[in-house]
């Protein structure tokens, strides 16, 4: 009976993914977040795009309006900015003027993709994030999105590990393992971000409040 009770507790804790923390009454979180295309220090050219495709959902589900990332990218290009570095230089008041964003998320990709290490192939994603209020320029949150997956698992021999590493390295290139890792990394890093103002509103409309 004790076994099932502890199993029950594990299931309950595991089933409920990160529940957002409600900020203190004197802290007002921004309603909307503008996620700019990330700058990229990795060797994976597509890293910023993959990150962008997985950032909207976790942020929005936490109670923030996330501006449609493709529209934002086009807005930047329409205004003559073609690199993320250029986009990150745009003054906050100008961003606010053109989008109405209450906050901007600046992202830098540190590492992204397969790391071949002979006996294992590791898929790693690392991105640093900074949330800045448009009004004041104050940084209200920073986060490190980190996740990795190792091919070295249950190998019985060195030969198996070697082959496994090569197979993973090749298949990693064909099938994007970083897509799922990106979600995982972002989701985990948002643990420390307060819930947004839209959360209670949306829950109320859903009828769950």
């Amino acid at each position: 009976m004790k076994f099932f009770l502890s199993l029950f507790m594990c299931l309950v804790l595991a089933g409920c993914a990160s529940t957002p923390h409600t900020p203190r009454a004197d802290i007002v979180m921004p309603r909307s977040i503008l996620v700019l295309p990330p700058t990229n220090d990795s060797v994976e050219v597509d890293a910023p795009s993959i990150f962008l495709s997985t950032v909207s959902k976790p942020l929005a589900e936490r109670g923030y309006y996330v501006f449609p990332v493709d529209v934002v990218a086009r807005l930047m290009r329409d205004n003559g900015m073609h690199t993320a570095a250029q986009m990150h230089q745009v003054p906050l008041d100008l961003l606010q003027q053109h989008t109405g964003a209450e906050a901007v998320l600046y992202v830098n990709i540190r590492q992204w993709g397969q790391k071949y290490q002979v006996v294992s192939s590791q898929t790693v994603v690392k991105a640093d994030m900074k949330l800045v209020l448009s009004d004041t320029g104050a940084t209200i949150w920073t986060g490190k999105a980190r996740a990795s997956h190792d091919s070295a698992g249950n190998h019985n021999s060195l030969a198996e590990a070697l082959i496994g590493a090569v197979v993973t390295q090749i298949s990693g290139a064909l099938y994007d393992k970083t897509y799922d890792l990106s979600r995982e990394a972002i989701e985990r890093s948002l643990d420390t971000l307060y819930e947004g103002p839209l959360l209670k509103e949306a829950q109320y409309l859903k009828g769950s409040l």
Partner: protein
Amino acid sequence: MGFQWLKRQQWVGTVVSVAIGSVLLGTMTGCVTTTGGLYYWGEYENVLHTQFTKPGKMTARQQVEILERDIVKAAQREQKIAPGVYAQLGLALAELGQRDGAKAAFDREIMLYPESAILLKGMMQRGDEAMKQQGALQ
């Protein structure tokens, strides 16, 4: 005595299995899941991912088809369509030259998410100005 003990064991076993089953079901549906979340996301993330990394594999026409289907599904499930879906649909429709449809989609995003008004109204305005310029040149 032995027979009674056996029956109780079976009963306990059934109760425990039912309890575990309902706990599993409860934890899977009760917490933040695809249906338990605030919005219906459908294929939005996949659309973005494919469009960004393999543009040839996600044409504007395909985007329209997929996103419109998701919008219908959200309505069927009585869930609010996720932020950005209507806006992305608008972009795809604009690409196909369906300006009225694009405007309607953008307007819908604004209605559902008023936070998007400044960005999307600006996009529509720039689209109109570009059209006027093209018209003037002709």
